[in-house]
């Protein structure tokens, strides 16, 4: 019996119990709903929740444990030479389930396994039947219990709302736990890393050369984990990106918000937003194959030595990607500046640009700062563009024509192809991840402070 069918069944039961709960409440109300504590629908919902939630919970728990329980039953009957070896066991279980599904014809396995496969099929049939029976039992018990509790004075609404509030709390908890989970998993591996490499060396070292051998007999770099060159590179590319995105984004926002006709705006704004939706792989190709060669060739004409992985190319393209973040967000904040301020300025005989520069922009500044900081954290965390267009070698330079590498590039290269978290090399990716997390955290806290401090001061 498939999961979706079970879920449908539960849903159907819920609908039924809702109906009966509601009817009973109406019957008890003696024709005047105001005799009831809550609306009839609340009573229906109450019964439905009591029917649905336990049943749903049961199905979920059952599904989580059914596999391992049946597996344990099968395993207990297998010969010891299979069960003693976990790898063998896992293969045997795979074969067994293939046989149980009827896909075993190509396998060359022992008769015990074939037997076990048959038994598995039997057990699964039994378990599924049992699940349906137990689920129905639970659901009907829930219905019966809650149905009998219905009474005009019962606080059905309060009960239903309490349950729905718990559902919301659970959801928030999941959301919060996932953030906490990220922090902790980063933290855990980073601490691991710092037990191998001193944090001081990591944070202040000037040499980065993490590609240590992944096997004992491979010769590669001896490993230096000074992350400063990465920070410098990241900063450089971010700066270039912001140098593109902030003026272009801001002026676009100003033009769209203050000068453009609504028709132009209706076309231009979504067009700009497309820039934000373009997958970053695409930007990566664009940067590596169109912009970088262009810069190199033109640099050569001017007699400049432009590296083909120049920070400039990656930064420019990243800047283009970020334009809509800056323009959309600052457009929003600038349009929130009250009309009264504009009127005040126009009323004094200011021109439009004077009004924008002296009144609207300063008033919107906190919001714009927030937008820019958000864009900065976006730029710092951006991966694909730099992976494809920036270099991998950790050059310590602030020359935008040279190749630099960034934190995210290193995270990717450190982890692709080698996913065992046991060497300083792979672990350093987590330390870098943690640094990124902390930096963006700092930026966000700062943005929040700025926004909170100046929010609606002009209102």
């Amino acid at each position, binding site marked *: 019996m498939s999961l979706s069918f079970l879920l449908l069944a539960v849903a159907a039961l819920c609908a039924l119990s809702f109906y009966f709960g509601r009817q009973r409440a109406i019957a008890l109300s003696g024709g005047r709903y105001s005799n009831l504590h809550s609306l009839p629908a609340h009573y229906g919902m109450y019964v439905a929740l009591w029917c649905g939630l336990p049943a749903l919970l049961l199905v979920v728990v059952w599904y989580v444990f059914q596999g391992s329980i049946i597996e344990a039953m099968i395993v207990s009957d297998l010969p010891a030479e299979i069960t003693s070896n976990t790898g063998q066991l896992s293969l045997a279980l795979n074969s067994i389930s293939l046989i149980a599904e009827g896909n075993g014809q190509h396998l060359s396995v022992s008769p015990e396994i074939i037997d076990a496969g048959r038994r598995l099929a039997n057990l699964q049939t039994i378990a599924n039947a049992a699940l349906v029976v137990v689920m129905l039992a639970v659901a009907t018990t829930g219905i019966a219990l809650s149905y009998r509790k219905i009474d005009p004075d019962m606080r059905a609404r309060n009960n239903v709302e309490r349950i729905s509030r718990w559902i919301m709390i659970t959801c928030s908890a999941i959301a919060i736990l996932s953030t906490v989970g990220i922090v902790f998993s980063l933290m855990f591996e980073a601490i691991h890393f710092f037990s191998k490499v001193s944090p001081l060396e990591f944070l202040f070292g000037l040499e980065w050369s993490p590609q240590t051998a992944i096997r004992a007999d491979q010769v590669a770099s001896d490993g230096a984990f000074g992350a400063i060159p990465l920070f410098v590179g990241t900063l450089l590319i971010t700066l270039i990106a912001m140098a593109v995105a902030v003026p272009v984004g801001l002026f676009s926002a100003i033009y769209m918000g203050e000068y453009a006709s609504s028709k132009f705006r209706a076309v231009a704004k979504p067009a700009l937003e497309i820039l934000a939706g373009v997958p970053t792989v695409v930007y990566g190709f664009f940067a590596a194959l169109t912009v970088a060669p262009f810069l190199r060739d033109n640099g050569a004409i001017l007699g400049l030595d432009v590296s083909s992985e120049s920070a400039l190319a990656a930064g420019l393209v990243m800047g283009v990607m970020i334009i809509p973040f800056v323009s959309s967000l600052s457009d929003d904040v600038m349009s929130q500046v*009250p009309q009264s301020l504009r009127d*005040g300025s126009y*009323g004094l*005989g*200011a021109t439009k640009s004077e009004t924008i520069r002296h009144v609207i922009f300063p*008033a919107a500044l906190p919001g714009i700062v927030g937008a820019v900081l958000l864009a900065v954290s976006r730029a710092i965390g951006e991966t694909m563009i730099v992976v494809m267009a920036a270099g991998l070698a950790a050059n310590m330079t602030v020359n935008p024509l040279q190749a630099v590498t960034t934190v995210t590039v290193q995270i990717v290269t450190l982890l692709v192809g080698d996913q065992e978290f046991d060497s300083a090399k792979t672990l350093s990716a987590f330390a870098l991840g943690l640094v990124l997390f902390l930096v963006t955290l700092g930026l966000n806290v700062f943005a929040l402070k700025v926004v909170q401090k100046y929010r609606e001061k*002009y209102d």
Partner: protein
Amino acid sequence: MAVVSQSAMTAQPSVASPKMTARDLNLSYGDNQALFDVNLDIVERQVTALIGPSGCGKSTFLRCMNRMNDTIDGVTIKGEVTLDGRDIYDKRIDVVQLRARIGMVFQKPNPFPKTIYDNVAYGPRIHGLVNSRDELDQIVMTSLERAGLLKEVKDRLQSPATGLSGGQQQRLCIARAVAVSPEVILMDEPCSALDPIATAKVEELIDELRSNYTIVIVTHSMQQAARVSQRTAFFHLGKLVEVGETDQIFTNPKDERTKGYITGRFG
């Protein structure tokens, strides 16, 4: 329409040498006409009050007088508004200068989110009225003085204007308007956001300013109109129904509608 125009004309006792005039002014927001053949003279160095029920076009008329309506999309204006005899809707008129000559104070105090000093200095700065920091200081001080605010704020000129109380903010807005030496000051319900005490202060101020400026004030409070104005104009449904000496309007209105409105029996 002709009839209306005529009645408006009769309602309009002409004035010797008006500072500003409106002649046959019609205004529509898109298809929605908001002003019908308004004819009104504004007398120099007097306070003219515009009264009338909500939506009758008081604010709209006021905004016509310094072309603030230009900033709204889809507004069409017919007729003539003059300042010192010159049509302000003339193509050759520079709006920016015009608005400097005809200042405006709004219903809700709207100080810029800058310091008190910068708020007042804003106008003179953008119009290039001063040549030195000293001159600017002087203008700021005098303007604040005129707005009756100097005493209260002289120790904190560099603190944000948004930290002032509502009444202070409104007086700051008046100071800001005064700083560009306008000839006319338009005020759109300048006290509606203020408590009675702050209102009293602003009214006192208007009375003082009258000696130097021509003032037009929109108000929904008839008491206020009676207290501060020398002339009163009553608008109704986009038409100017009656205009005259304030005393006359309040004691002896000629039009039935005016009478109904000021005695509160109206509507």
